[in-house]
């Protein structure tokens, strides 16, 4: 039996290791043979494809809003997020800075991103899930600096985006812009993406800077009801998303630089993941639906603060 996992961009390496482990576990349990096919792309674009008919048995996207959109189109139950533990996100991540070796521009905190002469690389929040987490993490920092004043936080974001020379469509594109094309002084990146970039560039050239505070990104997973009902794959699809929560699944997540939910695994990998103050989107922005409408809908705050070529 074959199931399809439609995922976002930076999980390529993670699921390349999860899938064979899952298949081995099923085979070991004397269950049916199962293979998992993958499709990767920008989180928003992937959600769009599933809405338009891409038959994903499982979606593993960058943010809950994208799965909400699929649910709104009637492909899975609206209460999907309460069907699995931990808000349906088996692993978390956060947003960190990737800078060039020696940190020549001395970037330590979010305020340093708005300094004149600092070039910031981040993808387009309209198409990239990671970019939305970047935006909200920076916005929260702007709010903190301004003592909660919204107008000043917006001015902060305007200055930040004046430092952004190019918006890639996806997180991986932005990473390659920074690492391979050598553009920019700092890349706002998923923690897992930053670690992976370090691992891929064995000759060095980059270092990770952990800001004092950042957002707790919770990438969710869900079984797509309409697809598994029609294809008769529910059992395997359900086993697949549950596998992510098992000790083995959690350890693979941690090895691929996603923060595990399991306390035991988190402790074992304690040295890998630096400690920093993490806030959730619920605490600061009242959840994804509100955050989307306020910041990323057409004509909302992102459109107001970002002027192309500005």
């Amino acid at each position, binding site marked *: 039996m074959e199931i399809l996992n439609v995922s976002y961009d930076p999980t390529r390496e993670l699921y390349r290791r999860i899938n064979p482990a899952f298949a081995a576990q099923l085979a070991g349990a004397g269950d049916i043979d199962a293979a998992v096919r993958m499709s990767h792309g920008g989180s928003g674009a992937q959600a769009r*494809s599933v809405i*338009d*008919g891409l038959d994903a048995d499982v979606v593993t996207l960058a943010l809950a809003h994208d799965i909400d959109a699929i649910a709104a189109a009637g492909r899975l139950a609206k209460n999907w997020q309460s069907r699995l533990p931990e808000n349906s996100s088996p692993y978390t991540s956060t947003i960190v800075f990737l800078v060039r070796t020696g940190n020549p521009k001395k970037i330590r905190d979010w305020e340093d991103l708005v300094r004149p002469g600092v070039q910031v690389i981040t993808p387009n929040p309209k198409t990239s899930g990671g970019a939305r987490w970047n935006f909200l993490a920076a916005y929260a920092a702007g709010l903190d600096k301004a003592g909660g004043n919204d107008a000043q936080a917006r001015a902060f974001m305007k200055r930040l985006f004046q430092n952004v020379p190019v918006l890639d469509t996806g997180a*991986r*594109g932005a990473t390659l812009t920074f690492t391979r094309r050598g553009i920019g002084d700092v890349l706002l990146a998923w923690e897992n993406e930053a670690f992976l970039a370090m691992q891929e560039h064995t000759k060095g050239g980059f270092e990770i800077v952990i800001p004092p505070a950042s957002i707790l990104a919770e990438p969710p997973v869900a079984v797509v009801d309409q697809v598994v009902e029609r294809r008769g794959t529910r059992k395997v699809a359900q086993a697949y998303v549950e596998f992510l929560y098992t000790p083995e699944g959690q350890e693979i997540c941690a090895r691929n630089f996603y923060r595990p939910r399991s306390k035991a695994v988190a402790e074992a990998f304690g040295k890998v993941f630096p400690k920093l103050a993490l806030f959730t989107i619920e605490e600061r922005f009242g959840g994804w639906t509100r955050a989307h409408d306020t910041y990323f809908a057409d004509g909302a705050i992102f459109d107001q603060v970002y002027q192309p070529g500005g």
Partner: protein
Amino acid sequence: MTAAGVPARRSDGALARRLLIGLAVAVAFILLGLPLAIVIVEAFARGAWTYLAALTDQDTLDAIRLTLLVALCSVVVTTVFGVAAAWCIARFEFRGRSLLLTVIDLPFSVSPVIAGLVQVLLFGRRGWLGPFLEAHDIRIVFALPGIVLATVFVTLPFVARELIPLMQEQGAEEEEAALSLGASGWQTFLRVTLPNIRFALLTGVLLANARAMGEFGAVSVVSGHIRGATNTMPLQVEILFNDYQIEAAFAVASVLAMLALVTLGLKLALERKSDTHTHEERPT
């Protein structure tokens, strides 16, 4: 004065000619030759073994197989359509003839991405035909039929555009002669029309094939990017590049480039052959 002026102008001409030829060769080298060379060099950057390993990866083999299948399907459709359309346009005057000519050229002017989006709007789950297709469990977008349709869209003009001017120039006399001697329509087509257009037809088929194998934009929209299932070679190149597998990306790119070069080589050989053929038949 004039006598002295003419050779001077002539040498000016020679100089300008050399400059222009040099410029054209330089541009062709920098814009066409160099990138091709870089693709080959990068592909072998980590040795022939890595190159072979990259090409025998299962997903890559699937991408190559899919690309060849899609090219075959779309070239067949394009050829049948191209011959039929060229026949109509070259042989008959009818209402809507110029409209048909314009429609054939549409894929040259419309962005391939639009071609892909139209497929989604038509055949997607929420498209016009979506409910019908879903009720009958027919998959078009994010599956082979959608990829073929999108490729057909971009390759549609190639055969027709090669044939129309030739068939117009040749005129209908030979066909009329065959018909008046009692040949059936089908016999006329096989024995008279087809031999007359065969070189142009093959050229069109080769060009359509090259375009079909290389198409990225339209296919990208309708593919769904399912690894080992709906990725063609151009999509596989992008995926490998983004997967940090740069050498593998260039390896697949080099195969794509070689397929294109083989196509061009065949086209060149064909043109040579068609030249000698015409000279033999109609000595000047």
